[in-house]
C-alpha cells in the first residue's frame, strides 16, 4: 500500500487517539478520509461495510483501547 497513506493514518491517530478513547472505548472504528466513518462492536461488521461501500484506500480499522487495556500491557 502507499507509504504515504500509512503515514497519514499514523499521523491522524497521533492527533486523535486521545479523543477516540473517550468517545468510542472498546468499539471498532474505521478511519477514512481523516474521519471516523464506521463504528461497530465487531471487526467483521466493519470490514463487511467497507466491502459494501467499496472504500478505497483501505480504511484503518482498529479496536479503540479502554483504559484497562493500557494498564494490562504496562
Amino acid at each position, binding site marked *: *500500500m502507499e*507509504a504515504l*497513506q*500509512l*503515514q497519514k*493514518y*499514523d*499521523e491522524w*491517530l*497521533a492527533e486523535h*487517539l*486521545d479523543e477516540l*478513547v473517550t468517545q468510542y472505548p472498546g468499539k471498532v472504528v474505521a478511519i477514512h478520509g481523516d474521519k471516523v466513518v464506521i463504528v461497530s462492536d*465487531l*471487526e*467483521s461488521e*466493519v*470490514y*463487511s461495510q467497507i466491502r459494501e461501500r467499496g472504500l478505497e484506500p*483501505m*480504511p*484503518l*480499522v*482498529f*479496536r479503540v*483501547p*479502554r*483504559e*484497562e*487495556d*493500557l494498564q*494490562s*500491557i504496562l
Partner: protein
Amino acid sequence: MSSVVTQMKPIVFRYKPIWRRLAPIITMGVKIEGIWYPVEVYVDSGSAYTVLHARIADGVGFDYRAVEPIYLQVGDGSFIPVYLHDLEVQMGAERFTAKVGFSEKLGVGFNLLGRADIFDRFRICFQESQGILTFESGK
C-alpha cells in the same frame, strides 16, 4: 574507485497520547490474501512474535487456523495458542515477509509488534522524551 553506501532514512513514528500517557503504537501494513490492510500495533520488545487479534483475521475472511498453533507464554504464566503465518508486511515504504501470528486469546487490548523478523531487520530507538520512535533499516 569508490564505493557507494546507500543510507535509508529512518522511519519515524510519533508516540500516541492515550489516557495521559504516551504509547509506542504505530501503523503498519499487512497483506492478507492479496489485500493490504493498515493495522495498529504496540511495539513490544518483550514479545517474540508479532501477534494480531484473531478477530481481524475473522473480519477479513482469513482462515488463520489452517496451520498448527504454537503456544506462547504470556505475562501471567499461561500459554496461548498462536497461529503463525508468513505474511508480507510494510513499515514505511519497506516491504518484507515476516512471521505474523493470530490469536483469539491475546490477553491485551492491542496487537503486538514483536521481535521475529522485525527487531533483527531494524534498529529501533524508543525516544519517549522526544515523543518519537525510529525504525532504521539494517538491511
